């Protein structure tokens, strides 16, 4: 009865690995080396992979980073982020088809629509924490799904939006290889924005709110408004990914709003490492590649394999790929210093 009312149950809090952002604690040269390697891989990717797969990885990387912004840095597990990914996909597709604008403008319109949608959903959701927050976001995402399903005159229902053009000042981007390089700057901008958010005064407040909301309030921080702002920013970045995904596939189907899409985003983040930001990018690469490889080999039960790997990671490497690797590297460095 004398406890502070706003503290969520510890059990409902995600298992966040220690360290603010592991990369931020690494020495400067390590950070620049990682950045260089990351950029090199991003530039090389469509040469080593099927270009359409490389495009998917970029889109999912944005989606994962958006989800991690909430899950890892605000302590909120959204189980309805398909609402923002999918809404942006539809809006981007509609703008591209009907307005004939360059695709980056259509994607921006889609991402803005996702951010606008995130305001009312976030406003209602951030009043809850833990599993209740997840359920509220899931419920709203399901509502968006049903609206899209029923509103056939606009969304074309189960047929989906077909023929989303890749218009960019008359350039020929029909080849996925060139399209990849056309979207890469947008994706890098989105990732850089996420990094800046995490490494801003705002990001510091978010981490405080994640770890101890009651204390943050006692310091004078309006916790709900901070969470809502993070939610809207996350919705925008997820929308950026969803819009690019729509243009990349030249097609938008109801799948982009399905709850399994929300679930897959969470899986990607957990695989890569919650609260690491770049782990989500890595997780996107692993999951998209794995799914492509499995479907290419004719294996039917893709979910069984990705689900199995997910279970293994949760049980054995709770910090995910990035988190486990970073922890190992930091331990090595600490040992060498001794």
């Amino acid at each position, binding site marked *: *009865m004398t406890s502070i009312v706003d503290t969520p149950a510890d059990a409902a809090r995600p298992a966040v690995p220690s360290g603010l952002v592991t990369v931020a604690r690494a020495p400067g040269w390590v950070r620049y080396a990682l950045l260089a390697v990351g950029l090199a891989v991003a530039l090389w990717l469509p040469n080593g992979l099927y270009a359409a797969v490389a495009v998917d990885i970029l889109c999912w990387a944005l989606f994962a980073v958006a989800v991690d912004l909430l899950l890892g840095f605000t302590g909120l597990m959204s189980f309805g982020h398909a609402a923002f990914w999918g809404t942006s996909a539809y809006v981007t597709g509609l703008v591209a088809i009907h307005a004939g604008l360059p695709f980056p403008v259509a994607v921006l319109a889609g991402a803005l629509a996702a951010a606008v949608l995130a305001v009312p959903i976030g406003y209602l959701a951030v009043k809850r924490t833990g599993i209740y927050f997840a359920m509220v976001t899931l419920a709203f995402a399901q509502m968006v799904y049903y609206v899209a399903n029923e509103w056939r005159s606009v969304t074309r229902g189960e047929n989906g939006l077909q023929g989303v053009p890749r218009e960019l000042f008359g350039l020929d981007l029909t080849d996925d290889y060139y399209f990849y390089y056309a979207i890469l700057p947008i994706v890098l901008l989105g990732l850089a924005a996420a990094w*800046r*958010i995490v490494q801003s*005064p705002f*990001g510091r407040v978010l*981490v405080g709110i994640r770890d101890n909301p009651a204390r943050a309030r*006692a310091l004078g921080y309006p916790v709900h408004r901070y969470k809502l702002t993070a939610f809207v920013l996350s919705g925008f970045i997820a929308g950026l990914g969803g819009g690019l995904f729509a243009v990349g596939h030249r097609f938008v189907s109801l799948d982009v709003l399905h709850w399994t899409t929300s679930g897959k985003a969470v899986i990607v983040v957990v695989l890569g490492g919650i609260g690491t930001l770049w782990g989500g990018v890595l997780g996107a690469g692993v999951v998209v590649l794995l799914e492509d490889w499995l479907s290419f080999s004719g294996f039917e039960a893709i979910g069984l394999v990705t689900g199995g790997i997910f279970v293994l990671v949760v049980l054995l490497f709770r910090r995910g790929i990035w988190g486990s690797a970073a922890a190992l590297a930091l331990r090595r460095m600490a040992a060498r210093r001794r």
Partner: protein
Amino acid sequence: MAGQAILSARGLTRDFRGFRAVDGVDLDIAPDSVHALVGPNGAGKTTLFNLLTGFLRPSGGRIELAGRDVTGLPPERVARLGVARSFQITSLFPQLSAREHVELALQSSSGLGWKFWRSATLMRRYTDRAGELLDMVGLAELAEAPAEALAYGRKRALELAIALALDPKVLLLDEPTAGMGLEDVDRTVELIARVREGRTVVMVEHNMSVVGRLADTVTVLQAGKVLVEGPYEQVRADERVITAYLGAADVAH
């Protein structure tokens, strides 16, 4: 009296499912005083604290801060109006360093916390002031240690540092010396004696020697009501207080 009190409560009441934890409390905290709230366990001290800081909504009654009605305001608003608090159970951000804690507290009165497009290195503008505050509470050498790595007494000191970082008009300390060794208690008493200059301190405290050394006024609570109020010496000698404490002791043994 009410006119000159910096923080006052009138008929403050809080119910928990039929149980009245705070029952019609009238309280006037004089500016620049140290005011101690004492009483046996379950007297409603911490509930009263949570009401005064907005962490709980009162079921009835009214709270005024410097003549302004603050009843029902959320905790962040109360904090921004100049009421800072510490928690009975140490409440920190486990992964942030001591310095980051103080910087976060110093930043809260500015709009910097909203700037998601700016670099966190901007928070370095608070580093000097954070260093002074950490030095004040004896944590200068542990500034870079994550809070979770600090010993208990150091954590309590950090709590005090972040409350002070808000430069509050009223500082509410919930059992600032609870669980401390003698040496830490002495250090904390000295510190409170130092920081009370120019501000008002309200503290819940079980350690009567701490109360005696610091408090100008003591309010004794029992079963959610004000039992006695007055200067320490007078309260200590009061029959009703002795009975209340002995009564509680009897139940405990």
